[in-house]
């Protein structure tokens, strides 16, 4: 009897010890290095909400991905590089992916990913040469890099004829941070090739809401176009100053992170005509959005505020989570397993095939361009559309645009090699194994 009791207690203890492990086997941890606080929170919140709600919807509607629950978790960085690096260290053992959410954090964790063997997923942001998957084996920036964005903007403002920019002056109003400086090498290359003058105008963190000096420079220099690489409060500050300076809005174009409904509300009607390139299109009636509404929003599980459901950034957050989920699905199928690990997800992200059939299957038709990734192409180059602020919301005003890869590819190759040389020994997957 005594032995029986001992065995019982031992089994109970063993069961207790194994229970979390068994539970963990049925779930995949996907951590997001979020920024819901700090000076950039206004941009971060709708994006994080979109990411969170898509995964929550899959858990509610389908019980996860192929029967495996998704544990969506966040580690708050406040968009601060040091905190981001801490979050990476804290979460790398449990999460199958790192979503750094800032170019500064991406650059910080980039060398570590080779050692830790955990994929970095930086959709539409990060270091543009990450496109070169032979060198950046663990980093992914689908569906487009900043250089894709810069190329598409130039195409749009020149109506497809970049030689028409000859003799013109283009100002780049950018956050004085790694993110803001990202397009400069490509724009400089374009300036040399097509004969226009590039005028970078940096905006410091403390000057984001008082850009009078920058806009006085714009008034003095009279550029033909102002391109903006702004984030968070900088976007609202710039648009307000543009209105004040009476800069023609149709000559003012932002990258996709400068096209946020929440930022534009401050300027409202006065900012009508401002444009932003976007690799995503909001569609609140898309089946996926209706499912999120049904399973997450209407059940009170979402954190979104009034009107946020229709915002470009909320729905872009949904698409960003879709990349991770499709990577997981691809890995599950390829490795014939349910609970994929970080290395398997790396394969999945390298073999994404987002075609029309896939978009229809997941209820996202028309919300993003089709693309696929490969060993030597970690961005996918999905292209995008010009969106225009109509005083109340962003609307699509162009056909689908594609970046000029003939111009971008050599620069990607050169800069990726430069990075690898500077960080030698750097592992390179020459044969694309």
């Amino acid at each position: 009897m005594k032995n029986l009791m001992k065995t019982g207690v031992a089994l109970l203890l063993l069961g207790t010890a194994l229970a979390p492990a068994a539970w963990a086997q049925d779930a995949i941890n996907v951590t997001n290095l979020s920024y819901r606080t700090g000076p950039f929170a206004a941009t971060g919140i709708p994006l994080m909400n979109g990411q969170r709600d898509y995964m929550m919807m899959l858990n509610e509607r389908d019980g996860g991905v192929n029967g495996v629950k998704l544990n969506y978790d966040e580690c708050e960085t406040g968009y601060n590089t040091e905190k981001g690096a801490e979050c990476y260290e804290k979460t790398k053992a449990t999460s199958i992916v790192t979503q750094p959410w800032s170019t500064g954090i991406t650059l910080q964790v980039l060398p570590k990913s080779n050692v830790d063997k955990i994929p970095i997923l930086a959709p539409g942001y990060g270091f543009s040469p990450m496109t070169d998957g032979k060198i950046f084996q663990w980093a992914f920036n689908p569906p487009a890099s900043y250089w894709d964005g810069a190329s598409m903007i130039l195409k749009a403002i020149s109506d497809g004829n970049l030689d028409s920019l000859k003799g013109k002056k283009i100002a780049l109003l950018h956050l004085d941070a790694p993110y803001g400086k990202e397009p400069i090498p490509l724009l400089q290359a374009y300036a040399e090739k097509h004969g226009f003058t590039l005028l970078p105008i940096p905006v410091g963190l403390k000057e984001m809401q008082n850009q009078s000096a920058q806009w006085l420079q714009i008034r003095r220099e009279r550029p033909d176009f102002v391109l903006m690489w702004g984030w968070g409060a900088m976007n609202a500050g710039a648009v307000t100053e543009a209105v004040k300076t009476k800069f023609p809005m149709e000559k003012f174009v932002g990258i996709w992170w400068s096209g946020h409904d929440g930022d534009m509300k401050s300027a409202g009607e006065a900012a009508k005509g401002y444009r932003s390139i976007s690799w995503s299109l909001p569609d609140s009636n898309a089946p996926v959005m209706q499912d999120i509404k049904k399973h997450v929003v209407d059940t009170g599980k979402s954190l979104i505020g009034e009107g946020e459901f229709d915002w470009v950034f909320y729905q872009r957050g949904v698409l960003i989570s879709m990349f991770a989920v499709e990577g997981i699905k691809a890995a599950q199928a390829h490795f014939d397993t349910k609970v994929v690990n970080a290395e398997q997800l790396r394969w999945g992200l390298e073999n994404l095939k987002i075609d029309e059939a896939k978009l229809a299957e997941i209820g996202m038709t028309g919300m993003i361009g089709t693309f696929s990734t490969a060993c030597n192409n970690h961005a996918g180059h999905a292209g995008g559309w010009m969106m225009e602020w109509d005083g109340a919301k962003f609307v699509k005003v162009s056909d689908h645009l594609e970046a000029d890869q003939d111009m971008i590819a050599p620069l990607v190759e050169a800069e990726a090699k430069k990075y690898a040389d500077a960080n030698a020994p750097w592992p390179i997957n020459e044969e694309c194994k």
Partner: protein
Amino acid sequence: MDFLNSILVKPFADMFGAPDFLLQVLWEGLVSGVLYALIALGFVLIYKSSRIFNFAQGIMVVFAALTLVGLHEKGVPALLAVPLTLLVMFILAVAIERVVLRPLVNQPDIILFMATIGITLFLVGFGEIIFGGENKVMITQELHIPTGSFEFEPFGGFVSIEQKDLTAVVGAIVLVAGLLLFLNKSKMGRAIRALGDDHQAALSVGISLSTIWVLVWFIAGVIALATGIVWGARAGVSFALEVIAFKALPVLMLGGLESVLGAIIGGLAIGVLEKLFEIYWGQPLLGGNTETWFAFVFALLVLLFRPQGLFGEKIIERV
């Protein structure tokens, strides 16, 4: 030779070549300066009365502005939301005195400074929970702040003065004048100054430390609200407003931590000088964005000659 020309001749030639543009630069610098002075005033008042460097001043700007906009979003009329926000700032001042400062009386200055960092973190989290982190639109029109602009054509050029900037300047002048009057002419104001001069002596003549601390934190709250309205009207209300508090640091270095006059003159000087430097030297020669460091370098240069700042008190300690 070209280098010397670009530093010593060209900037001045540009100024006189386009005097309308120079006027615009000076105006923008003046507006920035007034706003810096407002933030610096909040720091000075608290430091004067309690020797605490209030790290929470920046987040108080955010909190006051968010409360105003938040109350209006809940249906409170704008003109009623202002006194209600002031009431909230008063309650905050009482809470800070009771919960944070009173238990720390007689502790070293660094402890009190650390406590204000704690207040900052609390207000960030508390503000997030109540108001959310999204960018909000300041209720400029509802507060009857004019939003048009006055346009002039001096010297055959063009100068534009935003009415809301003009309102900010006038409002700041009225606020500062009222504050100076209060500090110099009222009994309470004199008590604040007495406490700033000598805590022990002030206490010995019956001045209540807790009352004065509540009062100065409330006044800092009033200044925070004014600052929040003015800055919020420019680019919306969000937690990004917190970083503008750092613009006040060189102002304090320049003007001195204890001087109201120093905060005002230091703010105006830095506002105008950093704008002139950025436009005529920084952008053409250094690629721009000199505003991030110019004020600190300028303040450091002043400190080399006047370690107590332009208007700070010279402290001699016997050792």
